[in-house]
């Protein structure tokens, strides 16, 4: 299931391990998918000659041509709607949404058509479309360029939603997403695009599996995307104060890898969910609900959420007040440990 055996096989010819930024890790992942499958085509605004505003598709149009790296008209509904048609014809479109806040014109095609087509056709038609969305804040951007709208899509049956947090995962997860038969919303934490790391020779795990990125004993901290690094830093600081945090990178928001999550919380008895998105009805709300349903008697304390406030994403001069950081995670740890 989405564990990219094909990707793994193809990797043997490449020169791994390699050091890369997350942005370039996605570029090379896209390139590998395009080399492997001629039906894979990229669509988006400014992704061709310019290589995308974050340069994630840099060089690909030169090598694969304008029919496979398509500079589309500036219309997100049009991009997503034509991606549906291309998928119906047997292509595997990978759509780049330029910034998180620009996905809304395409929302109708995603939730009304892409998510539902398989069920509507009783399994006759599958739409293996990947929607790449650079998301999240922390880069001092203007309005509509810093949002975390993953809950909208995670709430929609028929979609799968994944988030990468490091170059290795970014490189392999994009290939796994492209090989998935179901539509996948692929979130890329834009403020981590320039983080460097080593890409290993194979995916670490299936696309929809969570990863325990730091083992611990006192508190389980669930994070994804940009907050994984923040949470790991918090865990380092907590350890110096004598508290052991277990950090889980969720990687998949729909479906959630509840086995890994619940096993951890049963062991630690305490849990914090960290995300940039506003907490109200965010992923933290769903996780807290499921955790209290499924390991109520293991809990030593209520599940806490650390996230964005329930306001429109603020102007960049005060975005650091909105975004969870190391101190807000540690503050939640202190509150939990007081129980």
């Amino acid at each position, binding site marked *: *299931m*989405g564990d990219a055996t094909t990707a793994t096989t193809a990797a043997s010819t490449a020169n791994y391990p390699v050091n890369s930024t997350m942005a370039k890790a996605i570029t090379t992942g896209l390139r590998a998918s395009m080399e492997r499958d001629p039906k894979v*085509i990229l669509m988006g605004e400014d992704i061709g000659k310019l290589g995308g505003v974050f340069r994630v598709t840099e060089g690909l149009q030169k090598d694969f041509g304008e*029919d496979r790296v398509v500079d*589309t*008209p500036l*219309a997100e*509904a*049009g991009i*997503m*709607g*034509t*991606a*549906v*048609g*291309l*998928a*119906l*014809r*047997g*292509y595997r479109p990978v759509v780049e949404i330029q910034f998180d806040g620009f996905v809304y*014109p395409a929302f*109708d*095609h995603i939730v*009304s*058509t892409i998510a*539902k*087509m*398989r*069920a*509507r*056709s*009783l*399994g*006759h*038609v*599958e739409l293996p479309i990947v929607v790449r969305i650079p998301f999240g804040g922390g880069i001092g951007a203007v309005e509509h360029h810093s949002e975390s709208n993953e809950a909208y899509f995670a709430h929609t*049956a*028929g979609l*799968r939603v994944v988030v990468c947090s490091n170059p290795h995962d970014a490189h392999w997860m994009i290939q796994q997403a492209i090989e*998935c*038969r*179901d539509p996948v919303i692929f979130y890329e934490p834009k403020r981590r695009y320039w983080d460097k790391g080593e890409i290993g020779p194979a995916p670490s795990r299936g696309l929809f599996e969570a990863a325990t990125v730091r083992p611990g004993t006192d508190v389980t901290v669930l994070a994804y995307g940009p907050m994984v690094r923040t949470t790991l830093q918090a865990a380092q600081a907590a350890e110096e104060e004598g508290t052991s945090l277990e950090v889980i990178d969720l990687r998949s928001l729909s*479906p959630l890898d*509840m086995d890994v999550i619940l096993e951890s919380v049963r062991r630690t008895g305490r849990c914090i969910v960290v995300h940039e998105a506003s907490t109200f009805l965010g992923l933290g709300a769903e996780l807290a609900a499921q955790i209290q349903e499924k390991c109520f008697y293991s809990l030593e304390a209520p599940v806490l959420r650390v996230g964005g406030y329930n306001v429109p994403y603020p102007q960049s001069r005060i975005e650091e007040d909105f975004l969870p950081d190391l101190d807000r995670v540690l503050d939640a740890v202190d509150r939990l440990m007081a129980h």
Partner: protein
Amino acid sequence: MIQLLTPEGELVESAPQQYRDIAASLTDDELRGFYRDLVLTRRFDAEATALQRQGELGLWASLLGQEAAQVGSGRALRPQDYAFPTYREHGVAWCRGVDPVNLMGMFRGVNHGGWDPNDKNFHLYTIIIGAQTLHATGYAMGVQRDGAVGTGDPDRDTAVIAYFGDGATSQGDVSEALVFAGVNNSPVVFFCQNNQFAISEPNEKQTRAPLYHRARGFGFPGLRVDGNDILAVYAVTKVALDAARSGEGPSFIEAFTYRMGAHTTSDDPTKYRLSAEVERWKLRDPIERLKAWLAHEGKADRAFFDAIAKEADDLGADVRARCIALPDPAGTDMFEYVYGEDHPVMVAEREEFTAYQSSFEGAH
């Protein structure tokens, strides 16, 4: 407005020669076939309306009055072409060979469409207004990438047709489809059935200019055809599809027609239009004009018309029986088709649902 056959069933000698030639090339068998398609389509549509009134369908969107627009365009398609319908293209579905009972599934509530679109190259009905015009355009972009345009091979070159209504032209999706098709020179024909109403709102609430004028602004041709004249609709659609297949790009056809019935069975058109207007359009009926012409030309006789009437009644009875016999899906079906790959929530919820249902077993 292109017209080849007047409402009285007389040929229009002043019509463009290109279209007259196409009509003239139709064999008597093909022309009688058109008549049969029109009558049978109207008949099963009427049966579906009756089934709704009797509670067997939750809703029905009648095509009454639009038969010529649908059959004329549908018969211009080749097998490899692909049609993207709204939810009212029962006549096009008929031409593509889709079983009429399949069209009733979603209105009966046993599925949301359910047929395999690739079986007859007829996509699922789309209720989101205008969305299918973009799906059609994307499909046409795929056709281009497959090298199935402009090869000169009549069995390979492929066109796509997107159906939509006058109301849909107000949707951004339709304008975006025209943009994408235009800049990509895609082999897609935008076939707008202007039936004068978007539920209750007349044309003047949707547009200031004639709809077919829009095509020019997007850089490709548009024309208006008498949508109740099957010969004209067939001819203009054939020209447009041929152009698309040969690589000349998209075009826009406005089939000027009239929705004789309600928007759907839930609607009450007496609240927003005058019966005198409906009466005027009755005189332009698409079936009567073809019948008059066929009879006058000696291309069909009374025995033929009687046989078609009989066949139509048989179709009505058959569709009725098979519609009523459509089985309800199992409750667990809701979990079956959501994802192609394993999904833990589907597994867990199906188990939860099944356990809950079985808890009633043996209860009184």
